[in-house]
């Protein structure tokens, strides 16, 4: 396993896809904080402090797609150039090969987040310290890491099981966008439901059947909470906002990563590699 990891990381540092994604992450951070500087000039210093969370975690919107691209080019190429077959020929277990690729993909996600953070800190500390006023930095970073690990598990599953790299790239990219939109819609609907529940409790006289409506809203909230737990990107709205989100969401993301990995290892173990 150690040999696999060192070989994977040695290949990673020479991978052009990795450095292009790192450059894109740095450029995006520079753009976001550059715009924050301009807007602070127009709206005042309080604006930067209010938008600190949103600016810092805005990159979570595209990191899923970035990981899909990385998994496609870095892991997916192993099928076509025979690297995967060679690893198995020299005696490595399929499980170890899968896990090594997963760890590299997860590490890339965290490295992209780190690059964004470093550029954000460099610009903010030099010009706009208020932009670093994150409300709950440790918890938010843990949540962001759990979302990235969930994405890495999903796209490693796709890259290891699908031998057609083009198809895997297109499907993974479309899936990353669909997951992001679905997660944000579920999160938004959940907030609307919470507001509706508070309204029914505060003003029951405004409704013809307040008890019935309350029960219906409770059932819908339960459904949306289940959906929220199943969709790791649903946490992104909490990361960019002021509220902390529920404590179990990052654990659910890590749980979905474990399930995806278990399924991936099981299916990859039986896959016929040509």
């Amino acid at each position, binding site marked *: 396993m150690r040999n696999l990891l060192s070989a994977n990381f040695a290949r990673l540092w020479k991978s052009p896809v990795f450095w292009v994604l790192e450059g894109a992450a740095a450029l995006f951070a520079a753009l976001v904080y550059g715009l924050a500087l301009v807007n602070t000039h127009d709206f005042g210093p309080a604006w930067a402090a209010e938008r600190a969370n949103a600016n810092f975690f805005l990159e979570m919107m595209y990191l899923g797609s970035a990981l899909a691209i990385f998994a*496609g080019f870095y892991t*997916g190429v192993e099928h076509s150039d025979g690297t995967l077959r060679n690893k198995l020929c020299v005696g490595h277990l399929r499980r170890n090969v899968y896990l090594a690729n997963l760890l590299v993909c997860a590490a890339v996600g965290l490295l992209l987040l780190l690059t964004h953070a470093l550029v954000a800190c460099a610009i903010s500390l030099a010009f706009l310290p208020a932009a670093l006023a994150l409300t709950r930095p440790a918890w938010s970073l843990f949540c962001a890491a759990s979302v990235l690990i969930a994405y890495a598990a999903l796209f490693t599953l796709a890259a290891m099981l699908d031998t057609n*790299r*083009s198809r895997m790239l*297109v*499907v993974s*990219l*479309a899936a990353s*966008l*669909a997951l992001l939109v679905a997660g944000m819609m579920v999160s938004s609907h959940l907030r609307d439901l919470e507001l509706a529940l508070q309204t029914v409790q505060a003003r029951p006289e405004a409704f013809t059947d307040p008890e019935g409506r309350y029960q219906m809203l409770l059932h819908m909230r339960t459904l949306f909470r289940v959906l929220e737990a199943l969709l790791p990107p649903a946490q992104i709205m909490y990361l960019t906002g002021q509220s902390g989100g529920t404590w179990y969401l990052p654990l659910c993301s890590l749980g979905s990563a474990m399930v995806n990995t278990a399924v991936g290892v099981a299916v990859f173990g039986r896959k016929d590699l040509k």
Partner: protein
Amino acid sequence: MRKLLSAEIYRCRHILLFWLMLFASALSGVFYGIVSMSGSFDGIFVVPLFVVSAAFISLNTGREYTDNAIRNKIITGATKTSILLSKLILGVGIGVLFCAAFLVPCAIILSFNVLSKIPASVLYWTLTGFVLLSVVWAVLFTVISMLISAKGVGSIINFALIFAIMLLSYQLRSILRQPEFITTTEHSMVQMTPEEVKQIQEGTYQGSYSEATDENGQVTYYKSVLTNTEQNPNPKYIKQPFRGILTHLDSMLPHGQINEYESCLTNCRYEYLQGGGAPEAEPLEEYPRLKIFPLYSCFDILLLSGIGLILFRKKEIR
């Protein structure tokens, strides 16, 4: 070229991917119809149609490069021009078909309570323009996929272009919607007349006011009066000729057209609900660009096809 085209159509009809993507377009139409029923028309929910179109065209063309089908076509005597033209014609057909698969379920869902609120002229120009801009997207994806033979890179560029053009069009809309003048007003507090004070005490005064109590307990009522209004030029307003250039660019971008369609359709719906019936004014007078968007789309198609032809003829096919 006729044989190339019939081969392309035969191949499309017999691959599962085509029917899957057609079904995905229909699903995205259902999704758009459901989302548009409750609120306003939002252009971002049209994007799944273009993602599906990009996915199909990228995969279909990428497979031809992988299987060396394009090289074989050249070896058998087909010119690069005829190969690309057959692909472009197929792209136009794909654009129209996927757009129809999107619009039909969307129209069925919206016909229940929404389409009747929109004038027929607006619907006509919107549908015509939407079909043409779907063709523009399909031609763009075809050109990119034919010029970039590296596996997967073409599909990534196509997806990235969808969002880049969308963000650019939002930015252009924000810039072009800046008002020419910024109105600043000055108010001063004026003591209210005895008649107005009497109205306050009777509870019949309409408007805002404030009261101040002095050390003797006497209450004095004040109201805010507009004393000065100034209109200053907005420094963010873009003047001619740059404004004209940006407007043309916004009209050329497919998502720029979608922004205008969504504004017009939402406006028609809002006016209908507010006015209790059909709007009095002709909506197309407020949105004159709707009638010339089809021309811009035709120009885009010709421009992209021309660029694609020039570059593909110089491309080395290995």
